[in-house]
């Protein structure tokens, strides 16, 4: 009885929120979604700490590159297109590159400039706005604003996964959060009493209801080949065990009813000894992508993964064999729905005069327009909605044709 009550409460809450946000956004009337298009899966990874795009996707064809980083480049990179090489720690993803399921965009950034603060940079990346929008308007994440525009939403449509706060998904549209250790098991009488105690405090009430829901959520399906392969991968242990567990949960949910998942990867703030710190972060990224591929099975073909970071790093190495906070960087795309095998973006050059503030890679593109084109191609979202609501103030420009 209790369980039914809470379930009703939860769904009621979600429905109320959709109604509410629909009223607040007249643009929504222009959104039309065919259910077939809504079949696509989207995974957004926020690479926290500022990934060094220049080391991950190395512009070895630029004659200035090698001299800027004499102490950073350890093992040789893996050839991509003649101009760029990929960091050797991404070797596990080479088959994806070869089958056009991995791609990059170089020399991109958010509109964030100059102060180079991780926290502000991440806030802006996740808000998806420009610097001209007042702070109060940056509370909602762009993925949440996307959800607000999608009909047929329920509370499991989108999942924020892991312990890190995912501002990119936060906002008025209902979103679920999950970490590996969540569970709420109390006596039925206590559950009933807690529900009454929390009733008047929406924060406590909703958190408790969602905890109950998550506790009851199905575990990976062990009857299928796909489910067993996923379970084995997640259970492997080692230093990337946590990230495989997050990606594994994402894959399982996405295989079923969830359409959007977001989680964080840390370890990118490579101020020191980048030759040993960056490979660890890249190893996690590769493991996360491969876990998704395994866990999604046939659905991988309908999946787009976007990995983005708050800004790039200085073009020159610093005094401790690392790099400091910069501006332009790279973003990473993967998935079976991708038309990959390409490094997109307009290369600005690395001569002193080409740099931003004479220290950073000059951004020639906006990460938001690539994300927006992915949303448009994946979900069929109107350009007007993308430019007006999801990424307010953005001009999309030409379609880079990210998806098949």
């Amino acid at each position, binding site marked *: 009885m209790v369980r039914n009550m809470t379930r009703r409460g939860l769904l009621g809450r979600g429905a109320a929120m959709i109604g509410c946000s629909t009223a607040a956004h007249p643009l929504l009337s222009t959104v039309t979604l065919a259910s077939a298009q809504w079949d696509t899966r989207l995974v957004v990874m926020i690479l926290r700490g500022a990934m060094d795009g220049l080391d991950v996707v190395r512009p070895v064809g630029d004659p200035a590159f090698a001299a800027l980083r004499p102490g950073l480049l350890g093992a040789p990179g893996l050839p991509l297109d003649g101009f760029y090489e990929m960091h050797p720690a991404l070797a596990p993803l080479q088959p994806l590159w070869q089958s056009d399921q991995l791609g990059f965009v170089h020399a991109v950034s958010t509109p964030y400039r*100059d*102060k*180079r*603060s*991780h*926290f*502000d940079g991440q806030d802006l990346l996740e808000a998806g706005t420009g610097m001209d929008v007042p702070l109060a308007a940056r509370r909602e994440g762009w993925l949440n604003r996307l959800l607000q525009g999608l009909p047929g939403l329920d509370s499991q449509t989108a999942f924020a996964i892991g*312990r*890190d*706060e995912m501002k990119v998904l936060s906002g008025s549209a209902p979103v679920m*959060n*999950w*970490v590996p*250790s*969540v*569970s*709420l*098991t*109390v*006596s039925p*009488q*206590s559950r009933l*009493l*807690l529900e*009454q*105690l*929390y009733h*008047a*405090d929406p*924060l*406590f009430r909703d*958190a*408790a209801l*969602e*905890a109950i*829901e*998550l*506790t009851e959520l199905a575990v990976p399906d062990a009857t299928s080949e796909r489910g067993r392969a996923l379970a084995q991968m997640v259970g492997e242990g080692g230093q990337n065990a946590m990230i495989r567990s997050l990606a594994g949960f994402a894959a399982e949910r996405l295989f079923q009813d969830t359409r959007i998942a977001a989680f964080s990867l*840390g370890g990118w703030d490579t*101020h*020191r000894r980048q030759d040993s710190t960056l490979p660890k972060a890249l190893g996690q990224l590769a493991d996360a992508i491969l876990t998704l591929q395994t866990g999604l099975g046939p659905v991988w073909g309908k999946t787009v993964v976007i990995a983005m970071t708050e800004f790039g790093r200085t073009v020159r190495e*610093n*005094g*401790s064999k*690392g790099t*400091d*906070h910069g501006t332009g960087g790279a973003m990473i795309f993967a998935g079976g729905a991708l038309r990959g095998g390409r490094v997109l973006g307009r290369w600005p050059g690395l001569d002193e005069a080409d740099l931003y*503030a004479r220290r950073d890679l000059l951004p020639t593109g906006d990460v938001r327009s690539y994300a927006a084109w992915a949303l448009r191609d994946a979900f069929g979202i109107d350009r007007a909605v993308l430019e007006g609501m999801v990424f307010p103030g953005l001009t999309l420009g030409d379609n880079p044709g990210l998806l098949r």
Partner: protein
Amino acid sequence: MKQATIAAIRFGYGLGAGRLAGSAPDIMQSLRAADAMVSAYPLLSLAEALALRRNYFKTQDAEASGDPEAVKAHEAARLAVADTSPILLRHVVARAVASPAPFRERLHLFWLDHFTTRIRGGGETALAHSFADTALRATMTRRFADMLRAVVVHPQMLLYLDQTSSVGPGSVAGRRQNRGLNENLARELLELHTLGVGGSYSQGDVMEMAELLTGLQFRPKDGGFAFVANHAEPGPETVLGRTYGGMRRGGLDAIFAALDDLSVHPDTARHLARKLVVHFVSDRPDPALVAHVAARWRETDGDLMQVYDALLEHPAAWGALGGKAKQPLDFIISAFRALGMTGADVMALPRQPFQEMVVNALAGMGQPFMRAPGPDGWKEADEAWITPIGLSQRIRWAMRNPSRLVKPLPDPRDFVVQALDDAATPQLIWAVGAADTVAQGVGLVLASTEFNRR
């Protein structure tokens, strides 16, 4: 609501045994009294931490020989250092549970978070002890400038924000070894520790500050810290329009002069005033209260006792409770207090239960001790803590642990009054009476919104 209830819950660790300060003057009085907790539950000095470190690395070198005695010696040295991490947390908890001045303990954790660092691994774990007590606790009732100076030269901070790998590119060492700047400490000093991210500084100020900070180095053999002149970037540096040092800069004076100026900057006053009000009173701070505290900061050049007084004396600091959620560490400490535990009880908890009920519980609730994800420390907003995951861990803690901590458990109908006095709502009092067991009744009190909010 009684003023004493608000005082205990908002500015302390809740109600519990013992007489507590019930008003603003009482709280300030408790802060002016001698700090009894620091000797009752002492932490290691910097010299002691460095001795542990020395022994760690010395035995590590010897271990390479493979001699079983040497291996054993290093294992002992390793454990001695590693133990200092749970000891630090245990003493922090014992102080907060036993303290006659809970506001002092709250302030200590506030500053430990404002100047976030992480407990280091390996031989350097114990450095956090003197950072907590010498750099922060001993200075938090003085001028902010004193705290800033103590923090910026402490090895714990120098290591955490990479100052140890920053060398002036034009310095002797920089030229000889082709080394350069690391901006990390300079940036966080401006962005987080003083002016705030909205403050009036530019990337140029960060660079100049980074150059000014060169020379600050971790030097274990010299007592932990030294100004290494041949690391220092030559020439004057200009931060926020003021110029520090000269062509033959060779000491700390120029760095301290810049820190002193930062400590009294109006942006620093505003940033810290807001942060104090948000931490103690509400996630949506009253602008009048922030302005009042910031004004006192400016008038007294950051005299922290005056600043606390300004916070406590303002009527807006005594509004209705409920504007904030207790962070996980505060939740656990106030649960210990409510259950009537003493500092001695905390110290007597065997290793395993302490690990489960404090160390692991904190990690589960999202706040592993001194392991915040970044230098901006823990989140303040209630939504950051009362999440499905965080709340389910609290409920589990509340239902399971009290019966392991106190025997016999109190009658839940008495406990709700002991823990919350007139902050308990009639609904909570009713629900506690309707619980199916004593343990669940006590658990309901600790899991309630009244107990988890402040």
